[in-house]
């Protein structure tokens, strides 16, 4: 086989191996439902039966007696925010979990006064192993009645602009929000709310300042799973839960996976199949003609 043939074969092999690698290589991106490593949501998806929605435009197809877990690390646009608002005001339950993301944009659009402080919340005394993994032991009565006693957070932030009666969970009096802008600045001391709930139209918005309580390595710590389940099933009522992954930052591997999946869907359409069959037919015919010409 001559050099062009060799090069062609190698390129084809590389592409095939590359595609297979992208398809089967596990994702390790934060909060991805397919991620089985310590920072994914595979375990939560398995335990709760939560389905994944990859676009906020799918909200219109979701029953209103459902809960959407939304972690916005990409800024949602106007139409997406409108979809969210329509879902909530129609009676849906939105569980907005954020830290250092775009949760404040969602809260602002929904007309709520609550905000994420986006400052790290640490607790040097009541914590799991170190101050960046603070424990929450103070809850509203409705959560205590569910037997929820301790929740472990992981590099959380805190909430602001919420009246005390709306607090669902709050940090201890020894927790602080260090002010990194100036070493001389005083640290704000706790307690700080980390979960709160609001009515919006016919639905509810539950805000949690740490989405990391749902990751695989955190979900089974203390009462984390029960806590998340209660928030998603507002009032203890059984609800279908959906995890919106449309606004999670995808690394190039995940983008490639998504595009490969889209390509697969595209190739399943009748015209694509017909095109492929046609190409094969034309290729075989030309090869046969070429062989004939050689003779």
């Amino acid at each position, binding site marked *: 086989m001559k050099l062009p043939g060799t090069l062609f074969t190698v390129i084809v092999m590389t592409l095939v191996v590359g595609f297979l690698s992208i398809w089967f290589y596990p994702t390790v991106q934060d909060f991805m439902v397919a991620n089985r490593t*310590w920072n994914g949501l595979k375990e939560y998806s398995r335990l709760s039966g939560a389905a994944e929605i990859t676009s906020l435009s799918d909200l219109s197809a979701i029953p209103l007696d459902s809960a959407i877990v939304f972690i916005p690390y990409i800024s949602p646009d106007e139409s997406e925010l409108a979809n969210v608002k329509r879902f909530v005001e129609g009676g849906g339950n939105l569980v907005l979990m954020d830290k250092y993301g775009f949760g404040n944009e969602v809260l602002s659009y929904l007309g709520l006064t609550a905000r994420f402080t986006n400052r790290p919340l640490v607790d040097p005394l*009541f914590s*799991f*192993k170190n101050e960046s993994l603070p424990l929450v032991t103070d809850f509203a009565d409705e959560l205590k009645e569910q037997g929820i006693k301790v929740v472990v957070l*992981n*590099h959380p932030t805190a909430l602001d602009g919420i009246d005390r009666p709306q607090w669902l969970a709050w940090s201890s009096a020894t927790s602080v929000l260090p002010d990194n802008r100036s070493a001389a600045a005083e640290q704000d001391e706790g307690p700080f709310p980390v979960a709160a709930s609001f009515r919006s139209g016919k639905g509810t918005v539950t805000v949690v300042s740490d989405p*990391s309580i749902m990751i695989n390595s955190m979900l089974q710590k203390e009462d984390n799973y029960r806590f998340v389940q209660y928030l998603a099933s507002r009032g203890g009522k059984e609800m279908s839960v959906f995890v919106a992954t449309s606004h999670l930052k995808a*690394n190039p591997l995940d983008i490639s996976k998504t595009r490969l999946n889209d390509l697969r869907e595209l190739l399943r359409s009748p*015209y694509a199949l017909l095109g492929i069959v046609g190409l094969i*037919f034309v290729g075989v015919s030309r090869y046969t003609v070429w062989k004939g010409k050689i003779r």
Partner: protein
Amino acid sequence: MKAFRRRVILAVAFLLAVMALVASQAALAVELHEDPDAARTAFSGISLFRYYSTSLDFVLSCNPAEVRARLEKMPFANLPQSLEPATADFVSSIIDVSGLVGDVDSAIENIRQIERQSRSDEAAQLGQEAVGKISQALSLLDSAERAVVISGKELKVIGAPEGSELKTSYYDVLTRIDRIRQAFEVEKDTLATLNQEIAVSGKSLISTRITLGIDPDEAFVGDEVHFEGDLTTAGGEVLGGRQVLILAGGLQLVNVITDVGGKYRGTLAVHPEYVSELILQSLYLPGGEDVGVYASSISPGLVLKVLFYEASLKLTVGDKAFPGREIKVSGTFDYGGSPPLGSRIIEVYLDDVFAVRTSVQPTFDIDLKLDTGIDLGKHVVSISGAAAGRYAPVVSSAGIEVSREMPLLDLNMPGVVMIPGAVNLSGRLYSELGPVENAPIDLRIGNSWIQAKTMGDGTFAARINLRPDLGLVEWRDLQLSVTPREPWHAPLKATMRMLAVNWVNCGAFLAALVFLGIYIPRRLRKKAGMRLGTGPKPSVIPPVPRAEPAVADAVVPAAAQNAEPGDAGPGGRILNWYRMIVRRILNLTRLTLLPRQTLREFAFEVKGVLGPAAQPFLDLTGMVERLLYSRQGATDADAARGQRLYRNIEQETGRFQIAARSIIAGERVQGVQSETGAISDGLASEMFGTALTLKAWLWTVLFLAVTYYAVLLYVLLLLISR
């Protein structure tokens, strides 16, 4: 072999590069958290001691509830395991101390008050109890201090620099414990002083004695009870004209004045407290001139049995409760053996919020209207029956579940729709609570969408125009979404399936299949001058008579003529090699040479069967042509090249000997072309056995595709028509 090895190495190199790229991309995640199982462990002694200090401040401010709330969280503190016993000691000790602080304070206050009432004996007893509590508190403080010292050793406070936060916070705790200890010492001194005063004052006062009797000793609520007694000194001297208080459960009910004989009497109404018994006592407190002369006295408690009628209230509520609708609450008062009340006032509460007050019979029904904005979920309806004379109050509650009724949908829609086209839909939305009136309905099929509205009776009608798309025959979902205006109706989302046949695309698809399967092959055949797969199949090759010696003359006439016998020059050698090769080829292919066939024509004729030997034979033929028809002779270099070509052809033709015999000699065509199909079929059948050819596979794929869609359409239409 070398080429294959090179290919493998290149492929492996690319593979590793791809894997590395994928892995590096995967590693570019942003860090928002850490793996808790791999997290570093860090303890903060400063936070621990500061927390202790703050808790002790609440002890000093007499806030035992806050102290308990703070210290009960200590099991969740992040501390070395070795500190757990010390921490537990500190917690239990300080919680107990915080309770004792309040007890001692209130005891001292009580003692002062009682002492003012000249109740010396009681005051002395309380004083002794308070001293005991102070001793207990001091012991607990010692225990707490030991626990802090142990914690300090574990957290290496001693080794910390002077003035460091750790050391400062540690000593702050010990300082506060000392302060609490001092506070208790002060109270101890205060008690000692008080006790001395009580002892002194008690000795100088004249003791008094008071008695009490009641009749009857059981009575209904509201009935009157007669009481009487007398007040004397310990020496028997009667004390007339003194005020006597009648107490029930420590609370003052009435006061009376003793007569000249020191006796008192009166009646009191049984207070409507609806408790089974009351402890009645009479109390003499010295007043006016008796202060400082006589001691107070209190009679032993007498038990008065309080009688009243009790009832239970059984509540039942409707199965379902909806916002904006009424819910029926039924109740029945059960008085047991007691005479029933004809009617009584009740108050109805919904989640502790007052709703209505009304008068009801022993069995009643109430319609309670729920607010339109009430939260969905569990709520509590409570009914309180007020006390009425001998009848005790009664309270009962029942839970209700507020939800929204899901409307039912009757929809008329076709089973099959054509695209492009339109779909006519109609239906009715209703529930047990009535029709869904004036509700907006969103209807969506793929990208086509329309909004309709229900009428007053819940009916609706709509027409959706379906836009063309790329599908052929497939199931389409009709998505219906209703947002009712009534607060008692829940939003409804429904999905129905219908079969969509895109008749335009189906026609185009069939046309494309025909184009690819029939028209294109014909064009190709015409262009290549071949009939693909339409010629006769290879058959047994009849033996061809061996060519006469004239064969060699026809092919190399010039060479035979020009060469001298025995001429071994370069040109002669080349011609000899060429001749031998031609004979070899003729033997292998069983061909005969055609009249007036040139060297080149012969070379092109046999090229197809020579395989790798084709090109060398063409080169050798070119050399012979130049030798015969040009003026230049052959050189030794040409001879050497000719020899290489000869050997190459000999070697290659030896390998393809079997394949070369498949030529059908009887079907050769004039010129350079031969039966490509026959050759390829022959080659394929020889080289790959009897497997199907490529074009047979292609026809099979096309046939299966057409069959699949035809069957699908037929079966689905059958299903729909049922």
